[in-house]
């Protein structure tokens, strides 16, 4: 673990009772390696290390901790602050609540839509309506219809010859007729490089005015998390992030990368394939996991 590695690094400088320029330098090298190993973006790591160095240089020494422990605590606290900041939940003030999910192919959007519907119903007593707006992937509409059936909630009867923006706009009417007050839009996975498909997302946003646009990212995403998140955020002004597949052993450094570059709240974490496997994002847990 990072604590062990730092203890080892600091042990080599016996008798040093406090953090100073020299031992901070060596300690920060270990922290940098740990963060890169955890998939935090190279440039985000650079900025983070600079911040920590400034704080470490100015830090008062805590008599109860070794320099290694103190540096870990400093790094951990700084990570928690960056990852959490002001924790925002979902904006449920206006009814109907409209939530749009976007992201790269295979990141877990369709599954997360169903998980969110489950959460909105059980925790907030809302009546969810699911909208399959992926007309490209074979059986994508069927996939969401099956999940809707499992949940016992209504879904829009999309077909592959429809236009996604039309589906979403019409779904708002159908949801109202069904007496639903929460509408969840599942969009097709796409590359941030695909101009027509990114434009499609803008069109859906323009026609449906969702209060929440959640960027769904795979916890195992590497350095590219920054480029992708930046592109989706620039196009759509996302309102939050869901990190999926956190039930594996990915360190999840993408969380810090995405938060740093977009400034948007990490709201939820996918912890499995079941519809109940959705948790609120915890900055302290994410920080410990990133540090390893």
């Amino acid at each position, binding site marked *: 673990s990072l604590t062990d590695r730092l203890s080892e690094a600091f042990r080599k400088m016996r008798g040093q009772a406090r953090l100073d320029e020299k031992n901070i330098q060596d300690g920060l090298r270990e922290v940098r390696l740990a963060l890169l190993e*955890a998939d935090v973006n190279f440039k985000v790591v650079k900025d983070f290390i600079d911040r920590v160095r400034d704080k470490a240089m100015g830090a008062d020494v805590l008599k109860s901790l070794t320099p290694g422990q103190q540096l870990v605590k400093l790094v951990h606290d700084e990570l928690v602050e960056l990852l959490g900041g002001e924790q925002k939940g979902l904006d449920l003030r206006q009814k109907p609540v409209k939530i749009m999910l976007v992201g790269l*192919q295979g990141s877990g959007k369709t599954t997360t839509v169903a998980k969110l519907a489950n959460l909105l119903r059980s925790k907030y007593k809302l009546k969810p309506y699911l909208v399959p707006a992926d007309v490209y992937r*074979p059986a994508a509409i069927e*996939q969401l219809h099956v999940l809707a059936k499992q949940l016992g909630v209504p879904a829009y009867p999309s077909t592959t010859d429809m236009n996604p923006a039309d589906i979403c706009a019409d779904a708002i009417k159908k949801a109202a007729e069904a007496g639903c007050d929460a509408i969840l839009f599942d969009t097709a996975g796409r590359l941030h490089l695909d101009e027509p498909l990114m434009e499609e997302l803008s069109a859906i946003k323009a026609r449906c005015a969702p209060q929440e646009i959640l960027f769904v990212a795979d916890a195992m995403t*590497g350095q590219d998390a920054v*480029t992708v998140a930046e592109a989706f955020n620039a196009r759509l002004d996302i309102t939050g992030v869901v990190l999926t*597949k956190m039930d594996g052993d990915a360190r999840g*450094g993408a969380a810090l990368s995405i938060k740093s570059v977009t400034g948007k709240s990490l709201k939820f974490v996918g912890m499995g394939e079941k519809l109940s496997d959705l948790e609120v994002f915890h900055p302290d847990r994410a920080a410990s996991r990133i540090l390893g």
Partner: protein
Amino acid sequence: LFGRSGGLDDAFWEELEEIFIMADMGSEATQKLIGNLKKRASSMAVTEAARFREVLSAELEAIFPLPKKPKVAAAPEVVMMVGVNGVGKTTTIAKLAYRARLQGRKVLIAAGDTFRAAAIGQLEIWAARVGAGIFSKAEGSDPAAVAFEAVDMAQREGFDLVLLDTAGRLHTQVNLMEELRKIKRVLEKKHPGAPHRIVLVIDATTGQNALSQTKLFHEAVGVDEIVLTKLDGTAKGGVMVSVAITHRLPISFVGLGEKMEDLRPFVGEDFAKALLG
């Protein structure tokens, strides 16, 4: 990278290190590769940055082994696709089926994901599009039974190739890795030599976790080759250098999009070119 002094100076190696790390190579593999590249550059007598790509191509060629053609004593050849959730296993089966169809082979797709919503429906659509047969059982069936019965059908009806889909699973899910072992055992019993190829599908956007995925899938069932998907995005897949150094597993194909034609044989030189941007 090739802009400034033009020589392989400290600034060059520093910039290369940053490029490699940002390509997901990881710090350890980057250090190792840079060490190798320095030696190779000198043995190839390359001193200008303009010729550096040749050095990198040569080094990657040495690092990435070539895929082996499996010995198939009796038809059908059986290929089993494995990998974590959402990486592109099902879509890659469609691409491999399409490729085999172009070669005139009779292809049977086996819908071995009996768990995820509409997994079977997804493959049924693909099978029709590429002109492959499809074998499936009811959702919730034992995937080992799907594997067994698909091979049985293939033997009886003269299929050349069986492409077996499996449900996505995290490498850390012990019971699901055991399920993969069971499917493999059932295939071996049913058709000696099967599965002739176990293909691990890895998403190019994956960071260092690809190492853990490869390690655990390889330990569980033995991986013969890797397909690297979604290289049409901005991710470079640099972690595969680390995977190759550690496991010596070949990358057979790369996925370059969502259509059936979007599969290309892996070429080290193209990978090197894309790495250097």
